[in-house]
């Protein structure tokens, strides 16, 4: 302990520790107490105790350990009081009591707890929506209202989703563990997918009038960084790189007037260069691992775009080549569509159009607006104006994002007046 400090200084320190460490404290309390809600209450209690004690006793040498141990005792107090009225709590109380005898936790163990928390929140036995809500709530510390607002979901619906997810964890006995090596690929996929969905929800909201819901992208990048710190797997690095590289274009993609600017037309001096450099280093790290996955490949493609100071300098042969590799790892129609666009840039619009038409002829991507807008663009460049108009109309009808719809409508009216 340091000596008693002014209450203002202590209070500032508590706020700082809350921001930097409350999620770590929570993650450890969940392990020790075996219950999300109890751990949440205990964490809050421990900070209340800190407000009480730190101005008098001084800030402890290791605030985190102090908070965990205080929270644990507070939880036992709560359980003892409740057990008087509720006999079913007796086994819980016994378990928590036993946890007191466990050896003191060191910082390495605490970092493991954060990873346990991430993997538990993203457990595949929970629905995707529940994974996202729980991760933002428990790992990022967002409030239920904040998450509901970001996902345009009524707050009671979202609260219910979190309650159900916690009940499933408890009732089905989902363990609070980092997966074994055998399970890791599938389980890591689930975590990466949740982070990427949060990022995309922020980067290009699936509906609504703002293209960038900045906060969610920032949360996703923070989560990505945390994951890479805790578990530097190549695909975790790949995902972080991908998010950093996309996010680096934010100012150029969505200037103040709220109109979407496509990659080709962006003012590249607005790109965030330090962030691009960081993303590029991560891609290179990931590719060096020789365990190349879809996130790293998509990041590599984004890095090639970032290398070009003007759109015309883009190295399309390299991008098309990376899409060929991506098709071998993850052969989805959407990847194939992007590859077709790269081929159009490398070999001309006719070559790309043939690829897109082949995808549509297989009966895939009919309802996907980007397939129709890409097709419309190629038809326009080939001078097939009438067909281009039809394709633009189809793309607008399928698109739910206002700025993107306005962009397509502008293209359409240019064609009609041409």
């Amino acid at each position: 302990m340091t000596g008693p400090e002014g209450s203002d200084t202590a209070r500032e320190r508590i706020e700082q520790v809350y921001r930097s460490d409350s999620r770590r404290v929570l993650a450890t309390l969940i392990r020790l107490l075996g219950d999300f809600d109890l751990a949440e209450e205990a964490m809050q209690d421990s900070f209340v105790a800190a407000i009480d004690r730190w101005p008098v006793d001084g800030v402890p040498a290791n605030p985190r350990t102090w908070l965990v141990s205080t929270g644990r005792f507070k939880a036992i107090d709560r359980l003892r009081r409740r057990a008087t009225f509720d006999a079913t709590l007796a086994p819980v109380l016994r378990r928590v009591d036993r946890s007191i005898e466990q050896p003191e936790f060191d910082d390495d163990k605490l970092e493991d707890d954060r990873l346990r928390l991430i993997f538990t929140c993203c457990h595949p036995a929970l629905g995707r929506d529940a994974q996202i809500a729980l991760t933002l709530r428990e790992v990022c510390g967002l409030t239920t209202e904040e998450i509901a607002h970001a996902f345009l979901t009524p707050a009671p619906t979202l609260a219910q989703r979190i309650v159900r997810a916690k009940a499933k964890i408890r009732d089905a006995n989902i363990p609070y563990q980092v997966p074994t090596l055998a399970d890791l690929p599938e389980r890591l996929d689930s975590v990466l997918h949740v982070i990427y969905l949060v990022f995309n929800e922020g980067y290009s909201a699936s509906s609504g009038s703002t293209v960038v819901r900045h906060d969610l992208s920032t949360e996703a990048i923070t989560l990505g960084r945390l994951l890479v710190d805790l578990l530097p797997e190549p695909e975790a690095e790949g995902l972080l790189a991908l998010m950093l590289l996309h996010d680096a274009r934010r100012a150029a993609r969505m200037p103040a007037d709220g109109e979407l600017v496509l990659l080709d037309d962006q003012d590249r001096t607005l790109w965030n260069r330090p962030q691009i450099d960081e993303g590029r280093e991560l891609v290179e790290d990931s590719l060096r691992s020789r365990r190349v996955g879809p996130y790293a490949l998509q990041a590599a493609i984004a890095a090639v775009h970032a290398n070009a100071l003007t759109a015309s300098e883009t190295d399309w042969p390299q991008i098309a080549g990376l899409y060929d590799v991506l098709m071998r790892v993850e052969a989805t129609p959407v990847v194939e569509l992007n590859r077709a666009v790269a081929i159009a840039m490398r070999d001309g619009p006719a070559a790309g159009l043939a690829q897109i038409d082949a995808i549509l002829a297989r009966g895939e991507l009919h309802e996907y607006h980007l397939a129709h807008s890409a097709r419309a663009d190629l038809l326009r460049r080939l001078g097939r104006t009438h067909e281009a108009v039809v394709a633009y109309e189809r793309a607008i009808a399928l698109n739910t994002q206002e700025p993107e719809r306005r962009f397509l409508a502008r293209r359409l009216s240019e064609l009609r007046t041409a």
Partner: protein
Amino acid sequence: MRYLCLIYDNEKAWEKMPKEEADAVFGEYFTFTEGIKASGQHLGGEALQPTQAATTVRVRNGKVATTDGPFAETKEQLGGYYLIDARDLNDAIQVAAKIPSARYGSVEVRPIMEFTSM
């Protein structure tokens, strides 16, 4: 902790399956069952008669209502179950994934309600 693994299969596919193929799957089931008996995770399990023999029972307003057939019309029907002992859900999912029908149908994993005496 105990889990019930409910095995959903397409009955019609079973009826149409050539005998050698069906025998091979039965063989797999035998091997699987012996395996979880040996590991101590097997608590029980039976194959069920086809859904034609099923009856669904509901009680509404204190009255018992019985209907012919399984609880829902889906492509797959409940074909059997294993009652297993597993450390936690991850362990139970690993066992369930080894049930041969997990590859053709679905296996529903349900935690058993444990009643503790007060």
